[in-house]
């Protein structure tokens, strides 16, 4: 009797020990996940932090009528405007630095920036103004302390006098650091200091739009066909299995399809968000179909019976009752599939959405990049400024993804409460 009691106690203790182990192991798994998430977060912060600001130089220039004709502002000689600004600055300080050398401190796009300024505000002609021009990538790095004077001297042949001048100008408050807002509103460029994400954001938006317009109706139609129109049986099982298999096809394959069929056979423009959206739409279709199918299957039979019992036709039962009830599930699945498509780069590489495009896309047929391909382009570039901007692009992309996930949660909660109360 007593021995039996002891055996039971031992057995129980053993069982509880297993409980403890299970607890420990699963806790470790969670901690490991959290750890890597933290590392990821830190890396993103570290990479993108330098790109958050941009250094500018405050230069006084004279938009003299000598170089800019009022009638033809666009073809003014802005290089001259810039150069004379440099000369004045250097002479005023009695510096022996040559204008050409000092010019390298500022972005090579400076004269274009001056032109854009005057074109958008012609009243500037004939006036002397202080303008803020971005520092070139190298000097931006130097200003932020990311590049040493030593390497500047060794690798770029920057002389002592220029270094001293720069420090002097900085002391005088002529070098400023501002939030890099422009990165969100400018197109891509060969020069990191003026390169922006705008084209990629617009390209991604167009691609998502096309993707949604293609995949959502197709997914709904497919689900209606398999769930409501085709009787249960072999044919339906074959369709189901095929869709499940399609969902596991690697995304690159869809890119190949886009290249061969949409661009090759149908002749749609390369690098266009239209083709990108089609490819991403086909890629998302199986995922959406599966989500929508599950949602439709979860609608209880009793609801269909209720509809039919008041004399609704099959279509009325589907469109008035089944689909609205399944909509939260369908939309959640759709948003998640779209979020996946938004972050997808591989198929876009094949259809050329990783080309260098400096003009903003005006429509779905114009060449463009997308956020993930822009990240690839920039992180591949040797300039440090581009790598930092790739970090910014990653943050923007993650921001959009979080937004979409939040939207799916919102839709789910809102619609299910609609189902309960509305």
């Amino acid at each position, binding site marked *: 009797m007593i021995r039996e009691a002891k055996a039971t106690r031992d057995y129980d203790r053993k069982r509880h020990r297993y409980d403890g182990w299970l607890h420990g192991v699963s806790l470790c798994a969670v901690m490991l996940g959290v750890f890597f998430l933290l590392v990821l977060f830190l890396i993103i912060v570290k990479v993108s932090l330098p790109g958050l600001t941009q250094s500018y130089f405050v230069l006084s220039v004279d938009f003299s009528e000598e170089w800019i004709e009022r009638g033809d502002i666009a073809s003014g000689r802005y290089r001259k405007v810039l150069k004379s600004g440099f000369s004045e600055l250097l002479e005023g300080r009695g510096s022996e630095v040559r204008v050409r050398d000092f010019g390298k401190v500022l972005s090579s796009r400076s004269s274009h920036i001056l032109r854009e300024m005057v074109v958008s505000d012609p009243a500037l002609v004939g006036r002397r103004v202080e303008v803020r021009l971005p520092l070139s990538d190298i000097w931006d790095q130097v200003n932020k302390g990311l590049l040493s004077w030593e390497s500047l001297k060794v690798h770029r042949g920057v002389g002592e006098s220029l270094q001293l001048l720069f420090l002097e100008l900085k002391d005088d408050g002529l070098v400023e650091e501002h939030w890099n807002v422009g990165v969100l509103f400018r197109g891509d460029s060969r020069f990191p200091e003026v390169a922006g994400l705008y084209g990629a954001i617009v390209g991604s938006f167009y691609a998502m739009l096309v993707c949604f317009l293609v995949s959502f109706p197709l997914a709904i139609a497919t689900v209606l066909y398999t769930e409501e129109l085709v009787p249960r049986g072999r044919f339906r099982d074959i369709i189901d299995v095929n869709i499940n298999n399609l969902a596991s096809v690697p995304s690159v394959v869809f890119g190949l399809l886009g290249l061969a069929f949409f661009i090759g056979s149908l002749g749609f423009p390369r690098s266009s968000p239209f083709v990108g959206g089609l490819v991403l739409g086909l890629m998302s279709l199986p995922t959406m179909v599966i989500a929508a199918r599950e949602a439709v299957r979860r609608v*209880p039979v009793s609801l269909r*019976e209720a*509809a039919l019992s008041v004399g609704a036709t099959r279509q009325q039962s589907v469109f008035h009752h089944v689909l609205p009830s399944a909509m939260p599930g369908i939309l959640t699945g759709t948003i998640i599939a779209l979020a996946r498509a938004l972050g997808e780069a591989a198929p876009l590489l094949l259809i050329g959405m990783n080309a260098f495009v400096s003009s903003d896309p005006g429509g779905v047929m114009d060449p463009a990049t997308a956020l993930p391909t822009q990240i690839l382009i920039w992180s591949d570039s040797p300039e440090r400024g581009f790598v930092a901007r790739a970090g910014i692009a990653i943050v923007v992309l993650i921001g959009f993804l979080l937004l979409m996930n939040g939207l799916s949660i919102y839709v789910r909660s809102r619609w299910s409460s609609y189902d309960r109360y509305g």
Partner: protein
Amino acid sequence: MEGLSRIKVECRGVSAFYGETQALNEVNLSIYDHEVMALIGPSGCGKSTFLRSLNRMNDLVSGCRIEGEISLDGEDIYGRGMDVTRLRTRVGMVFQKPNPFSKSVFENVAYGPRIHGMASNRSELEGIVETSLRRASLWEEVKDRMKQPGSSLSGGQQQRLCIARAIALNPEVILMDEPCSALDPIATARIEELIAELRGSYSLVVVTHSIQQAARISDRVAFFHLGKLVEDGLTGDIYNDPKDDRTLGYITGRFG
């Protein structure tokens, strides 16, 4: 009253099959105008199958096959000329578990009349909804909650809402499959009162598991056993003097 009534639904030699298994075997049964017919019998004897064959709800079930003849006012409901959606407006149905649409109280009742174009404008529709809710004795409880979802009502209210939904189509026959089995005794009593009120206007066919309930609400009773109709007749006759031993056994609670 029996003699004056005419036959509303007539079933002759009705058999039902789910694939290979036979659920109903040669059922002959008539349902008269303005009567409450209770279907009783042990679980799995085919009551629901029979009930659902009366408004062709079995069409939904793949593999289900009905043989024999069922006519409504002399018209074969499985015949080619019968539009199944029209049939279901004439033969309404209330289910075991309340299954309101996931729409407002108003929409729940208004949906049927709307899809059949029974109201030409909003106020007419509102009239139909109010009348139906009154007849289902639910109006007083929900008249201020028309915009709330049907599922926010209590179980008993939901069941009456489903009855109102059926009534709104102005049917001739109402089928009820164990309408009280998901309800508490008080809600059950309300539904039973309601059935008593409705009997004057419609033919009601009610499946029930409660022999007492059948006795309370019905004019006539049909007893099913293993897919066969064993006996049917006036409720009093069946309860006092069953012809068949199986009926006697079921009524006295010896099996079932």
